[in-house]
């Protein structure tokens, strides 16, 4: 008897460990399907995470036999676990980034399923938005947003002090001096994370090079030679801006939240960030007189640069893909396609002010959009050209890590511009 109990216990443990070990989907009888979604949006009550959850809830309601389990981690933890999953079996639907810094290694490992491009002909994807998710002509994922980089500013503060939105970079630096004289931080910058400054550098570079931007960047990354004069000039401009006091004191060690709080508390006049923060205008945690006065402008033109005022830094970053070895691939693709039905991600996203999707959203304009949202829409609609992926996400991830760390050192003057360009070049080799 005792032996039987022990044996039963051992068997149960073994079964449990096998189940825990595989992490794969369990397909139950009578068409019951469990889909595992692995997401980089841990906040399920606000913004993009809320939108994702709304679609998941809709799908489960329409397909009672499907249960969707969500595992959500913030970006850094997400990427670490993504790697662990890639070795022992991916969840069925995953968040991905359509940028070489992330996708190259992932596609080399063959963990994502190829999607049928013909399925998406009628989905209204903005032209070029799928490019980052393709390799050798095959499609592996779909983009979620169109991201635009911009300077959020406090309109009331500008009006009260008689400041004007700058039209050239020199004007921006002059304005920074005037703002500083009033004991206000000119521009809140999340320099602690590295990537926002890399986006800023890309934005400057795009204004210098215009349509040559992607050639300059891809040449530099493929050869590891960053001595191009535009790259040098862009870096010098970044350093000049930091020296002129455009950013807050200690910007190179402050994180996203701290920088954003400076702006939303009225301690900073401007905040440099992507269009996903357009939901600030709807965020009731921000004092009303600030929330309702947030406006945005894009990078002003630079003297001698080829980029015009309507050439904007914009790209399609995050998105979704299906795991190559999903046991319920058919259902996973069905769910993916469901998410991208124009009245799901695009519509819900728009209504919740999370910024622009990568699909045509014009059908969902309600007339109730915030001015901030409309400014972004106008910027995109009037754009003569867009930059594409920011420089830090254009190379291998070793390059990304390097540039995001070295950019702090070059902007605060602890290494020279030439050393910076040499160091990031080295990381490409």
């Amino acid at each position: 008897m005792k032996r039987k109990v022990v044996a039963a216990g051992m068997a149960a443990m073994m079964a449990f460990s096998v189940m825990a070990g595989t992490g794969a989907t369990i397909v139950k009888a009578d068409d019951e399907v469990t889909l595992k979604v692995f997401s980089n949006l841990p906040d399920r009550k606000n913004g993009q995470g809320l939108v994702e959850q709304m679609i998941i809830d809709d799908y489960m309601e329409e397909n009672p036999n499907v249960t969707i389990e969500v595992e959500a981690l913030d970006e850094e933890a997400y990427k670490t676990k993504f790697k662990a999953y890639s070795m022992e079996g991916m969840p069925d639907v995953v968040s991905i980034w359509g940028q070489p810094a992330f996708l190259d290694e992932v596609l080399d490992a063959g963990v994502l399923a190829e999607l049928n491009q013909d399925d998406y002909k009628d989905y209204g994807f903005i032209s070029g938005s799928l490019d980052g998710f393709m390799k050798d002509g095959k499609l592996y994922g779909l983009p979620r947003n169109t991201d635009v980089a911009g300077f959020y500013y406090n309109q009331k503060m500008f009006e009260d002090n008689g400041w004007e939105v700058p039209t050239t970079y020199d004007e921006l630096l002059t304005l920074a001096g005037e703002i500083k004289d009033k004991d206000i931080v000119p521009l809140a910058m999340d320099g602690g994370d590295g990537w926002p400054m890399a986006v800023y550098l890309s934005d400057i570079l795009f204004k210098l090079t215009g349509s040559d931007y992607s050639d300059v960047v891809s040449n530099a990354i493929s050869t590891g030679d960053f001595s191009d004069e535009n790259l040098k000039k862009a870096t010098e401009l970044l350093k000049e801006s930091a020296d002129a006091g455009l950013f807050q004191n200690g910007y190179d060690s402050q994180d996203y939240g701290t920088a954003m709080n400076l702006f939303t508390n009225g301690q900073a006049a401007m905040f440099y960030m992507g269009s996903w923060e357009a939901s600030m205008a709807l965020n009731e945690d921000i004092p009303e007189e600030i929330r309702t006065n947030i406006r945005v402008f894009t990078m002003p033109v630079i003297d001698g640069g080829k980029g015009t005022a309507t050439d904007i830094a914009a790209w399609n970053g995050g998105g979704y893909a299906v795991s190559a070895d999903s046991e319920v691939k058919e259902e996973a693709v069905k769910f993916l396609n469901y998410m991208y039905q124009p009245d799901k991600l695009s519509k819900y996203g728009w209504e919740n002010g999370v910024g622009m999707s990568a699909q045509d959203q014009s059908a969902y304009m309600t007339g109730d959009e915030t001015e901030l949202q409309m400014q972004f829409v106008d910027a995109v609609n009037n754009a003569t050209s867009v930059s594409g992926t920011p420089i830090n996400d254009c190379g291998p991830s070793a390059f990304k890590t390097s540039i995001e760390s070295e950019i702090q050192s070059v902007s605060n003057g602890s290494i020279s511009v030439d050393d910076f360009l040499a160091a990031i070049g080295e990381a490409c080799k």
Partner: protein
Amino acid sequence: MKKLYSNKLVIFSLVLPGLLLFFFAILAPICLSVYYGFTEYSGMGTATFIGMENYKKLMTDKAFWMSMRNSLLLAIGFICIQHPLAMITAAILDKLGGRGEGFFRCVYFIPNVISVAVIAYLWKFIYNPDFGLLNNIIKAFGGKGDINWFSTDNAIWSVLIVLIWHGFGWGMLIYYTGIKNIDPVLYEAAAIDGADQKTTFLKITLPLMKPVIQVNVTMAVISALKQMETVYLLTNGGPGNSTQFAANYLYQQAFKAFKYGYGNAIGVVFIIICLITTVVLNKIFEERDDRPAKAKRRKGAA
């Protein structure tokens, strides 16, 4: 019972679980680490064997040597600032007696009880150049109060202060226990002989505390080498790599830069450095232990 314990099979079966745990949880991962250290591997897909390339690169990697310098600075900070302070505080606490003793013992230990994440964010706000407590205090005393505590030059010192402050209570508690274990009769005898406080501390407390000091110093050096979570949360090694520590750098390379092979090479060098440090420290203390013993023996022979 005795017969049972002399049965080799029984001995084997009792030792086996421990051995297996050691093998699978410690030895096997280290061996795998050594293997991956010789490869170019992103952590996904296949690994390519590249021999000593990772190690060659590591030798000229400025960020890695910066992290070693920072570990060394931290170890010196622990040994020269934290531990003397902790020991003196422990000695004073011991003399304090009554309610005050328990109260202050608790107060000094509180930082150790609070989660590292909380500590890191607390200090981030204290150091904030725009609205932080430190700059506001300086302003209150008429200063300008615009010091950037996390600038490239200041950051490492700001981080060291947090680490030294955070570990202070732990060191103090061990010293305190050590002092409490000293036989009070010795102090009484010293008092009768007319020894003052200083002499008592130098001639009785300090020599008898030697084993405790050894343990504490070894632990301090190891924890300086292993430092990761506070730095990760406070500065993540920045600005640039000015506050980089080996464990944090390893994590960044292996999991953020997708250079899993290189990360493992760092891990292997890191393990070797830790082992050497421990052995050297043990040797130093051993010699110190031996010297008086040998001297005594010589005296006896004479």
